[in-house]
Every structure is written in C-alpha cells, then in structure tokens.
C-alpha cells in the first residue's frame, strides 16, 4: 500500500479553483520533489495535506496508509505521522520552544495511545536531537521562532521533524530565504532523516535545493496539475529550459 495517494484532487479557495485533478503517489523510503512556477499550486497541495482550513476540497481524495486523510483534523494527521515543514514558520511569543515541543510531542503520543514522556525523559531526547542537528540549546529556551533568523526557523522545523519522527515529511520551500551555508545545514538535517520507513515530499521553485537533497522522483506542476514526472535528471532539464514550456502545455 502506498504511504500517500492523492487521487484526482480538486481544491478551491473562495471562488478560485487552485488544483484541478492532481494525482500523486508516494511510497515509503522515497523522496519526491515537486517543482513548478509560482502560483502552480505547490503550497496549496502541502496545506491541504496538512489540513489547513480555508481550502475546500471539491473532488478527489487523499489516502494516507489507506485511510481517508481529508476526514481527519490537522492534529489527528500529525499524530498519524504527517509533518509539514512550513515555508514561513510562525513566531509564538510567550511560548518557550521547549514547552511547545513537549506539549506537541505528548499530544501526538497521547493521540496514538502511547504514554506521555515525563520532563526528564523528554529533555534528554530533545537535547540529544538538538545536539545532533547543531541547534544551540539556548534556542530551545526562547519563545517559538521569536527573533530567530530565517536559517534558525528552518532548523527549528527540522528539529521538530527529527523529534516527532513522522512517516511523511512535506518540506514547503525550505530553501526560501536561506543563504547557501544555511541551506547546506538544513539539507544535512533533512538527509540525516532519510530512511526506508519515511517518505519526503520536497516542494521547491529552484533546482538548487535538489543538489543537496537529491530526490528519487521529480514532478513538475503547472496550473494545478502534475504535468510531467521523471527522475532526478528532470530537475536539471528544468534548470536549463525553465517552466515556460509546461505553462504552455497545461
């Protein structure tokens, strides 16, 4: 059974249809890249999978391990193993990162019927993950993303990914706003999480990221559909020829 199956999905926001019959199948252990020009619907797809309100699914379905994902609340999806690394992680003043991480991890564990981690066990795990990803422990004491640089915010997303151990990671434009050094650090973090039990969907506008996180499959989106799929060489082809050909095709 595929981990994620998106079948003929149509989605609208207010009066605009953004996705017009999108299909995508992702199996465990695979890394998929979704590329496409601005406005092609890449971020909409990631938001709909994570369960963001404001989107109306008018047709098609999304199955996650064979279960109807669209029937679940965002928190149920998280507990089942769906993780969206946000393009723009929000700042939450007054909520210490550590408190947030513990509350979130325990909420997920509780939803899965697992015991909650007590503070000492949690701290051990959190520090271990932070050290592994070169996240300063001091960052964990600050308000969630408050005053973090672009690179720190993305690292905080990857830290959460490592801590929550989801089976599906969707990385929405994780290269946006990062310089090349910060990108390399973030990509190393992502690569360390590649595993046969986990799939990743990397959404990006530029080929650059895919030099660091090398995908198994590349899909090109245009005007709310996947218009071409191929191997990693497709990304290089796009780099050379641009998206214009697909915009005409779609």
């Amino acid at each position: 059974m595929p981990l994620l199956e998106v079948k003929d999905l149509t989605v609208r926001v207010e009066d605009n249809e953004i996705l017009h019959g999108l299909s995508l199948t992702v199996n465990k252990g695979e890394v998929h890249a979704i590329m496409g020009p601005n406005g092609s619907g890449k971020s909409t797809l990631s938001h709909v999978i994570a369960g963001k309100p404001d989107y109306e699914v008018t047709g098609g379905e999304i199955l996650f391990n064979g279960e109807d994902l669209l029937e679940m609340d965002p928190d149920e999806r998280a507990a089942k193993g769906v993780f969206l690394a946000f393009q723009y992680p929000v700042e939450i003043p007054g909520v210490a990162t550590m408190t947030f991480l513990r509350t979130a991890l325990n909420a997920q564990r509780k939803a899965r019927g697992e015991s909650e981690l007590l503070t000492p066990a949690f701290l051990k795990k959190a520090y271990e993950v932070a050290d592994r990803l070169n996240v300063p422990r001091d960052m964990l004491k600050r308000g969630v993303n408050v005053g973090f640089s672009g690179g720190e915010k993305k690292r905080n997303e990857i830290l959460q990914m490592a801590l929550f151990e989801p089976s599906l990671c969707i990385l929405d434009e994780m290269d946006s706003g990062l310089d090349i050094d910060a990108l390399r650090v973030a990509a190393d973090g992502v690569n360390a999480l590649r595993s046969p039990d986990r799939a990743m969907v990397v959404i990006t506008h530029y080929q650059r990221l895919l030099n660091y996180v090398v995908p198994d499959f590349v899909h090109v989106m245009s005007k709310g559909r996947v218009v071409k799929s191929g191997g990693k060489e497709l990304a290089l082809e796009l780099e050379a020829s641009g998206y214009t050909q697909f915009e005409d095709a779609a």
Partner: protein
Amino acid sequence: MNVVVAKTETGRALSDAFAVARGRLPGTGQVADRRRQAFEAYERLGLPHRRIEEWKYTDLRALMREAFSLAAEPDPATLERAGEAVRPHTIDGMRRLVLVDGVFAPNLSQTDGLDHGLRIRTLQGVLEGADSAIQAQLFTPENSDAMVALNSAMATDGVVIEIADGAVLKEPLHVLHIASTATPAAMFTRSLLRLGNNAGVTLVESFVAADGVKAYQVHDSLIVSIGDGSRLDHVRLIEDGRDAFNIASAMVTLGAHAHFNFFNMTSGASVSRYQATIACAGEGSRVETNGVNLLNGRQHADTTLLLDHAVPNCASREVFRAVVDDRAHSVFQGRIIVRPDAQKTDAKMMTRALLLSDEAEADNKPELEIFADDVTCGHGATTGALDDSLLFYLRARGLSEKEAQALLIQAFVGEAIESIANDTLRDLAVSTALRWLEART
C-alpha cells in the same frame, strides 16, 4: 452641564441602608462627622452611571439591580462556614488575616508572633480609639467618587497595618475576604497599609465566597502610603462567587525612591470594578501595575487606573491583559497625568484584549494628560481574536483545538503574570489561569 438623574430603586435602598446601619458603624465625634459628610456626598452623587465619564462602561444604575442591606455581624454558623473556606484559600508561608462578611475574624487569623516593626489593628478598633492621626489618614479619600464616599460612610471593619522604618518583612501578609452570609448582604470594608521609610512587604488580598453563598456585594477600599525607599508588592485575586459584586477602590501614594509592584487577577464575581489612584509624590519612584482578566458567561470586570506623576524622575509601567469569552465584558481605563513639575517622567501603558467569542466585549480607554515637556510617555491598545495562523501551526504539530487555544492564551496572559516577584504567588496566578482554561468547554 449638570445632569439630574432620578434616583433609582437601588440608590434609594443604599440610602436606607445607611440610616439602618448608622448605629452599628464604629466611631464617634469627628469620625461620625466624616461619615455623615461622606454620606451626604453619596446622596448628592447617587449611583454612578454611564454619563459620568469615569464610569462610562460600568453603569451601576443598570448593573446593580438591588442594594443589599449591611451584612449582620457573623454568627457562629457563619463563622463555621467561613472557617471551612479558609483552608483551600490559605497560601503557604503567608500570615493570614481574615475578614468574614466584612468583619475581622480573630479566630481565623494569625495575629501571634508578629515580626518586629509590624503592627496590625482592626479598622473598628482604630475608629473607636483615640489615634486621631491615623483616623484622619483613613478618611483622606475625597468624596468626589460616589462609591468611595459610600464606602467612607459605611466602612464597618478592615485591617490597619503599619510597618516601621527599616522593617523589611520576609513573611507576606494575606488579607482574605470571605463572604459567608446566609442571606444576600453587603459588606463595607476599609483597610490601610502604611509603610515607613526603607521598609518592605508583600500584601495579598483575595476575595472568595464560602460554600453555598450566592448573592452578595463587596464594597472595599484600601489606603496605602509607601515611605521613602520602601517597596510594596501587592497582589489582588478576585475569586468571588459568580453572583457577587465587588466594587473596590485604592489610593496609593509613593515617597521618594519608593517602588510599587502591583498585580490584579479577576476571574470571579458577576460585576467587579477596581479603581485605583496611584500618586508618585516622591522623586525617583517606580510603579509597575499588571492586570489579567479571565472572564466568561456574562461577567463584567472593570479596571480603572489613574497614575498621577507629580514630581520629576518617576517611572510607571502598566500592562493589562483581558481574555474575554461568551458574553463577558472587560473594561480597562488607564489615565496618566504628568504634572508640570514632573520632568523626566517615563510612563508607559499597554493593554491587550483577546476576544474568544463573537459576543465578547472589551473596552480600552487610555488617556494621557501631559503638562511637562521633557517626558517619555506612550500607550498602546489592541483587541482581537486568536491568530488563525498560530492556531494552525500548533494543530499541525498535534495539539487539539482546545490545547492550541490554551497554550496561546497562557502565553497571552504570561507577560502580566511574569511581573509577580514572589514565586508562590506567581505559581498561584499561573494555576488560576490554567484552571480557568481547563474549565473552558
């Protein structure tokens, strides 16, 4: 323009209450004269209503349907009921002073082994005694506000606390007001705290009801003077029953280099109002006032502060947070006066309200009156709902809607709660907020 408003039923009932209670009110001679003058002022003013600017959002003529008569002196059954409420409201490590239905209850209070430099008397004792200086201080508030005047006329009991020069008390004082009346009644209390020079204390006031007590009305006032170089940490916790009224006034005066750190949390009472005048009368004094309202149902809570900067080089900070659910109504009025001599004043006020329902209401009214030219003054106010993008982020990380809201609300009130210096009291405020959040459906 003078607006003459016909006296309401409630206003009349309060007039009658004075006539009936007069014989029971402590003090003769000058004290009785001052009561009479105060009562005449109340009679002229009548219950505050929306056309009086300071009471614009808290129209007692509309909110106070009836005035209860003065609570009877607590009988053994009343004291027993109150006694049962003492334990759950006792704060470890603090000296407890209990008022039951507005009357000091020695058997429920801890009056033995007072720290050196600490003196505690009852209002009744002071007004019936011969210490005319402190009697005069107890009647310093002007009769210009109707509810202060009514309190001056009717004050039955309270605590009079004096702290000598140089005495820095380790043990906080906890004045616990317990409503224990079997029938609807009103309580009128007045307390005084006088800190000498270079002294320090933490004062907690909490207002609660004994089990099964329904409607009652609290009329309280507190007069505070903080001597030069002294520090007062003052925490108020309004946890009255859901049918109760709590109308309280405070007049605080700071000497030179004095420090006043204040925190108020209102989660109880049906209608409550806290009005305080805080005067920086000595150079280099510092004031921090912080408030949190946690309201639901049809609760109405009003905080009205007047910060009076009369001398140079003083600083004040006001932080106020309101969380308003259902059809509740939160009011914050903050007025800052910087008088012509008060150069180098640094006064800031920030108030934020979080509306959790479409029918919740919050009114913020900042007023700055600045008559000096070399000052830093600022205010800000926001009102809004929880941010959807923050809620989605938290939910995408596994928090349920309720958990996500609770975490954001905790963060919202956290900034005000953080200001409490005493660890026990800060934890208490946090757990009160958590209890309130857990009770949300």
